[in-house]
C-alpha cells in the first residue's frame, strides 16, 4: 500500500538531485486535451509521455494538459516548449510517435520534422 511516508523518501531524493543540477525546468510539454483531442487518443498520448518520463528518469521536464487550440483536424496535438527556442507543435500524435519524440527531441534535442504541424506562436 502506498503511503505518504513513501512521498517523504521521494522528496528527500528529489531535493538531493536538485541541489546537484539546480531546479530548472528544461522543457515543457503541453498535450491538447479538448473534446476532439480526447476522442482521437490524447489520453494515451499523455499517458505515454508520463511513462517515458518515469522510465527515463527525466527530472527536468514538465508535462501539462490544456484545452484545444483550433487544430481539431490534427489531434492529438502536442506542444514542446523550450526556453529561448521556438515552440514546436506536433500533430496527429500516437503513443509510438510520442516515444520517438521523447528520444529524438526531448532527450537528444533533434526536432522530429515529420510530425511537426506548426512552429512559433
Amino acid at each position, binding site marked *: *500500500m*502506498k503511503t*505518504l511516508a*513513501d*512521498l*517523504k523518501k*521521494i*522528496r528527500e*531524493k*528529489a*531535493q538531493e538531485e*536538485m541541489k546537484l543540477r539546480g*531546479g530548472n*525546468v528544461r522543457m515543457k510539454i503541453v*498535450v491538447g*486535451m*479538448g*473534446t476532439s483531442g*480526447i*476522442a482521437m487518443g490524447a*489520453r*494515451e498520448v*499523455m*499517458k505515454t509521455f*508520463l511513462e517515458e*518520463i*518515469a*522510465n*527515463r*528518469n*527525466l*527530472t527536468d*521536464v*514538465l*508535462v*501539462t*494538459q490544456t*484545452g*484545444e*487550440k*483550433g487544430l*481539431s483536424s490534427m489531434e492529438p496535438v502536442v506542444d514542446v516548449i523550450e526556453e529561448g527556442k521556438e515552440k514546436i507543435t506536433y500533430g496527429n500524435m500516437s503513443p509510438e510517435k510520442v516515444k520517438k519524440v521523447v528520444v529524438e527531441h526531448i532527450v537528444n534535442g533533434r526536432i522530429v520534422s515529420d510530425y511537426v504541424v506548426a512552429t512559433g506562436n
Partner: protein
Amino acid sequence: MQDISLHLLDIIENSVRAGAKHIKVRVINNVPENVLRLIVEDDGIGMDSQTMQMAQDPFYTSKLEREKKVGLGIPLFKQNAELCNGSFKMASEPGFGTVLTVDFQLDHIDRMPLGNLKDTLLGAVVGHSEVDFYINLIYQSPFATQSFLFDTAAIKEELGDIPLTYPDVIEYIDQSLLEGIQNTNMEDV
C-alpha cells in the same frame, strides 16, 4: 468517445477551463441499486441557467478559438447516459461552481464500459498540478462497501517544491490509483 472514463476526462477539462481550483470526482458502483454514478464537483466560474441549457446543445461552445461552432462533449455524454436508462443532471451557480451527476444503469446492455479510469485520473492530476483533486471511488455490493480516497492537496503538501511530474512521483500516483481502483473493483466495470 468509447468509454465513460474518456467522458470523465472531458468533463474534468471543462472544470479546469472554468478556472476551478478544487475538483471533486466521485465514482460510485452501486450494485444493489444497479447504478453506476459519476459526480464531478468544481469551484469554477459556474453558469447561469441559460448557459447551462445551451451547454447541452451540440451547436453551442464556449471556446472562442473554434472555427466551427460545435460543442459535443456534454451532449454526447448526456446522450450516452440516457441511452442506457440513466440520467444527466447539472447544477450550477455563477461564481460558485458546477456539479454534474451522471447515472448509468449498471447492467444495461448498451452501457459503455467505465474504461481506463486510472489513465484519466493520472493525466488529470499530473497535467493540472495547479488544481487540487479529491477523488473518491466507492464500491457498494450487497454485503460490503469499499471506498478509496485520493487527495492531491495532501500529496503536494508532502512534496513541497517537487513537481508532480517528477518521475518517482508519477509512479507513486500511478500505483496509488491502481491500488484504489483494484480495491474498489473498478477495473472491469
